[in-house]
């Protein structure tokens, strides 16, 4: 039984980690401009 509690705590922590990652990405402005980043990776850097 205690294993289940341990597993539950782990799963919530992992999920909370993803929630934080999501909030971080939103805060960072990742979703503000969906066009630029998507295209930027395609350019060769000649330097």
């Amino acid at each position, binding site marked *: 039984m205690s294993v289940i509690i341990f597993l539950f705590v782990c799963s*919530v922590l992992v999920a909370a980690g993803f929630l934080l990652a999501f909030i971080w990405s*939103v805060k960072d402005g990742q979703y503000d401009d969906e066009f*630029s980043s998507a295209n930027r990776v395609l350019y060769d850097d000649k330097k």
Partner: protein
Amino acid sequence: MLTNHNHLSVAKNIKQLCFHCGSQCIDDVIIINEKHFCCNGCKTVYQILNENDLCAYYDFNEHAGISPNTQVRKDKFAYLDNTEIENKLIQFKDSKQTHVTFYLPQIHCSSCLYLLENITKINQNIITSKINFSKREIFIVFNHHAISLRKVAEILASVGYEPLISLNNAAQVKKKISRAKIYKIGVAGFCFANIMMLSFPEYLSGSTYVEPALKNLFSYMSLLLSLPVLFYSATEFYTSAWHGLKNKYLNIDIPVVLAILITFFRSLYHLFYLGENGYFDSMSGLVFFMLIGRIAQDKTQQYLSFERDFTSFFPIAVNKLFDKTFKPVPIEQLKENDVIQIYANEIIPVDAMLSKGNASIDYSFVSGESTPVAANIGDIIYAGGKQTGEKIELMVVKPMNQSYLTNLWNKQNATNKENKNTFVDTLSKNFTILVFIIAGIAFLYWAMIGKVAVGLDVLTTVFIIACPCTLLLAATFTYGNMLRIFAKNKVYIRHYNVLEKINEIDTIVYDKTGTLTQAANVAINFIGEELSAKEKILIKSTAANSKHVYSKSIVQFFAEENVVSNTNFKETIGKGIEAWIDEHYIKIGSPAFFNKPNELHKSIMYVAIDNKLLGYFITSNVYRKGFSAILKKLDNHYKQIILSGDSIAEKDFLEKTLGKNIQIHFNQKPEDKLKFIQQLQQNKQQVLMIGDGLNDAIALKESDVGIAITENNNNFTPACDIILDASFFEKFYQLFLFSKEGKKIIKLSFSFSFIYNVIGLYFALQGLLSPLIAAILMPSSTISIIAITFGLTQWSARKLKL
């Protein structure tokens, strides 16, 4: 090039597209590296890119370039050297670098992104440049010891991206995009999913198999996870409901809040008193789905500005006379009797008196009349007018905040569009009342047969299950998807309320110039002697040198003829053009250019070769494609009126094409238009107005639905409810049809959600609603409603060819 300078008919008549900007080359002269260019501006940009090894620009998109505005004068950005103005624009400055953001309306494709982010290659002193594509902004960090802000702006302008710097830039407090809603959704989703997970063991096995200690623990964890939903994610429902209560207005969020609170407290009762699992999953699910609905509705055009006012097209600075030299100053510092200098194609920011030079003022922003008005020394020129001729000097009569235009604008603020009850509000209100009645009757029934406890149980479960959540979602998802479909058709709608208002419209008011007619296109005709082939070539070759709209239309008029290269060319802005070609002197221009009075009161251009007058070109507005068909179609359902700022020149034409049903009023000033709309509204008519310029702005704001039509999204559009791209005008009628469809779809999905509610109530009224049933009904009803509304809107859009 020089050798064939004096020969006619050398140029081949093959239409080449400009390698840079893709417009048609009028002559075959500008060629480098076997690439054709339409003008020297485009060639220069190509050369800059070529030198800096940035030609990948052309690989991403063909003809991606923007023809640079060659009329930009050398010291246009001189005002950026003024520290006061500079400080208003820059965001950050330290001992090494300066940060600045410019608005570049020209940004449109991946090539733009490539070039602008590699602008550092053109000048090493620009340290970083980063584009925000959806805002069309460039963020630049530069070394201010090596280059100035002015130089940065000039570099951008030199490659075709001239920054748009307006008074608005300086005044505006940087708007922060609120991301709170997204965080709230994240939290609600997280909690909802975890509570669901915790509830599964009990749902799947019934209460028997789960060990009591574990079950208890899971229930308390559910409670813990529901707290962030209750206290954080759901907050905006509370504020909205409170706002409704305070204004004694039953809005849709009141039953939602009621459902949230009742579900929560009832779950507490289950947990602490009965020792059972509660409805925490349903509660957090409700909040989660409702928030998604809100986002779907709000996520429209957060970057399109619907609230632009005149400051966004006023210059930030103007040249003012100090002793003997002109220096740029911010325009709000102008005082009475200051002398200012205005160049061609610049807007006069204050009411002022002409003191030097020939003024030819285009008041189209203010009055709608697009033919420039000549002014004499001593005449007052009002703010908002645009000088079309040469450089002039003016003496300030009134500072900016007292000008006629500012007054006109501020007059507007008194009237405010009241938020009327929308159709969804009314429906949900009735629904809420119905729920209250059902719950009341059920409670009374159980109380009368002596089972008050069951009665209370029923009372609360009715509120849990019959929350208007699905009703609300039906509306939000339908409108959200409609706004998306409209945006795809280049119709940008400010708020979903507007779609409801469109359904109530009974009167449509049109502005004429720029709305029914095309702004950037003029029809042209030649009246005079029969022209010989050689004369045609000479006239076309002369006009080909100029970028003026009229010159361009002359070139198009003689589309069949060839062009001879020529260099002896002179353009007098606002008046006309002259050129020496092959020993001939060609002169084309306005009556004033020929010292003649304009007797026809129309836009005409005289043409003379070797001082012999051959005749004149007459220009007229080109009406938008299919405008009469559209107006006739709408005529069956709506009262239609045309208000024109112009003189009555085109009255006959309009009456003939449109018939007698449509009223037409001419010589309407902005205030007249406003009064007209107000009069209609006093007669209880619901008015939709469609217009373009600033001259329509106050009337647009006053009308129930204001539509601004634009041929280019980057242009100035006045404050309005809908920004409509001119290309959509042909489908103008579909705007009304689709809005009507939307209402039908919502009604239909309402009835679907009603079925779910009936099923839920069936259990609730008997006191049998278990958390399991609630947990199944809630998400399944929500998801099916989303599917239904999405499918139906998509289908009806296809039917209407949207």
